[in-house]
C-alpha cells in the first residue's frame, strides 16, 4: 500500500502521472521515481523469487542493492535488483523466477 498521508515527519509529495507496467502478465500502475521493489510492495507482492536449490521464497532485505535478494526479471533480463531499478512506462516484470537460471 502506498503512503498517501503527509505530516511533519513525512512531508507532502506529489506523485506524477502513473506509468503502466506489467507484473507476471498482469497490468498495473506505478509512479515515476518508484523502484520496481516499491511497485511490487504496493501491490502486496512480497515474494519476488524462489531460490535455486531449496526453492525458498525471498524478497526485499536490505533495500539498497547490497544483498541481491530482491531479484526479478525486467524486460527479459534476469537477476535484476528490484530495489535498484526505477519503473518505466511499458516495463515488463516477472517474479517467482529462480535466480541465475
Amino acid at each position, binding site marked *: 500500500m502506498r503512503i498517501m498521508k503527509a505530516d511533519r515527519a513525512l512531508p507532502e509529495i506529489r506523485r506524477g502521472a502513473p506509468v503502466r507496467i506489467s507484473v507476471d502478465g498482469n497490468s498495473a500502475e506505478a509512479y515515476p*521515481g518508484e523502484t520496481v521493489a516499491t511497485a511490487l510492495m504496493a501491490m502486496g507482492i512480497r515474494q519476488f523469487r524462489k531460490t535455486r536449490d531449496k526453492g525458498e521464497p525471498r524478497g526485499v*532485505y536490505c533495500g539498497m542493492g*547490497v544483498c541481491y535478494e530482491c531479484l526479478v526479471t525486467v524486460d527479459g533480463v534476469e537477476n535484476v535488483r528490484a530495489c535498484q531499478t526505477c519503473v518505466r512506462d511499458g516495463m515488463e516484470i516477472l517474479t517467482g523466477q529462480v535466480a541465475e537460471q
Partner: protein
Amino acid sequence: MKKVELAIVGAGPAGIHAALQANEAGLNTVMVDSNPRPGGQYYKQLPLDFGGKPQKVVEQEGSFLVGLLESTSVEIFSNTLVWGVFPASRGEGWLLNLHGEGVPKQIQAHSLILATGAYDTPIPFPGWTLPGVMTAGAGLISVKNQRVMPGKRALLTGTGPLQLALASSLIHAGVEVAMVLEASQPFPKAFQYAPVMINQWSRILEGVDYGFTMLRARVPYRLGWAVIEARGDGQVEEAVIARMDNEWHPLRGTEQVVQVDTIFSGYTVKPNNFLGRMMGCEFRPDHQQGGLVPVRDEWMQTSLPGVYLAGDAAGIGGAELARVEGKVAAVAAAVRAGRFSEKDAKPFSRRMRGQLRRQRRFANLLSELFTPQLGVISLATDNTIICRCEEVTLGDIRKVITEGARTVNDIKVLTRCGMGNCQGRNCELSIARILVQELGASGLTFDEVGVFRVRPPLHPLPVSVLADSLEVEG
C-alpha cells in the same frame, strides 16, 4: 581518456563534503555514485519525480548540500558503478573502470577518495530469509523515500538509536508498530558517557522527538530483548522474541510469540569497504568496527599513496565525522596536487583535529553501547541460512569446521559461502563469528580468522561489459 585530479567514489556525507572542499580548492574533480541522486543513505533525496519539499532538519540539510554540490563544477556520474581500479602507468594515479549509462568506460584520476559508506549488518536468525524480514535501512527507504508501506504490523529488533528513528517514521506512516526491541542493556553504562553527549544537542532532541512519538503511539520499548525466530508460510506471520544475556545469547524459557507481518532487523551498520580492499589498501581486523578498519594516516590516506578513505567506510562514525573526514581527505588531495603546501594546510589540519576528536568520541560511545556482540551468532541454529546467496546453513559450515576449516577463506572454498551474487558482503562477518564460536575455546580469535579476498568486478557484471571496457587503451 578522461583525466582528472581527483575522483570521489560515493556521494554520501563524506563524499559530498570532500567534493565541496575539492571544488573550493580548484581541483578538477569527478564524483561517481551508484544511486540515482547524490546523498547516499543519510541524505537520501526524494526521487525528483515525487515533487516534494524537505521539512525535517536533516532533510533540509541534505537537500541544501546536494543542491550546492550540483551547482559546483564537480562532474557527477550517478547510477554508475566503479567495478575495477588499477594503477595507471608511470605513477600517474589510478585507472577506474566505470559501468553506467552515458559515462566514460574508464577515467584516470591522480588521487582517489573512497567514501563508500555503510550498510545494515546482516544478522542471521531462524527465518530471517522470509519475505517480510528486512533491515532497518530498507524500512526507512520504503517509508521515507519511496512512500510505500513495507507491511501492516511490524516488530523492530536490533540495537542502537536508528531503530527509534525507524519506529517513529513507521508510526507516522500508519504502520502499526507492535514493539521495539533493543538487544543491549545500555544503562547504567551510558551514564558514564554523559559528558560526551553535551555537544550533541541536535541528536538529543532528535531522540526525544522519536521517544515522544513512540510514547504517544504506546509502543513498548524493551531493553535486553530480541527476535530469535521469524515464522510464517512464505512470508512473516509471527515473531518469536526472547530476553538476551549480556553476551547476546537468548535466554531459554523467556520466549514470547508476537503476531506481526514484518520484522525490521536493525543491528547497526557495517563499513562498505569492498572497494578499498579490492584495491589492496591495508586493513586490520576490528570486530567492534564491523570487521576491518583501514590503516590510515591523519590525512585519511590509506597505505596506497593518493588513495584516501573517509566516512563510515573506514569505521562507523556517523555523518558528522564523515563530514570532517571528507574535508580532510580533500585538502590532502589538494596538497598532493600542489594546490597548497603542507604548511598552508596546517591551520586547517589543526582545526579539523579537534572536530575529529569530538566526533570520534561520540562514535565510540555509540559503538561501546550498541555494537552487536560476538555472541549474537548464537541466534542461528543448524538450519539457519548463513550465506543467503548460496543457501549455506550453519550446519553446513559446522561440518567443514569439523573437517579442518579454520579461516573464513577455508569455509568459502569448501561451502561456496561468499561465491554468490553479493560476493560475501552479507555472510563474511557471520562466518567469522561462527569460527570464533566453534573454535574460540581452542584459542582462535576474531583477529585470526581472516576475511574474503575482494576481487574485481566489484559487483557481478556481464561478460560484454568487461569485454567492452578494453576499447580505450592508456
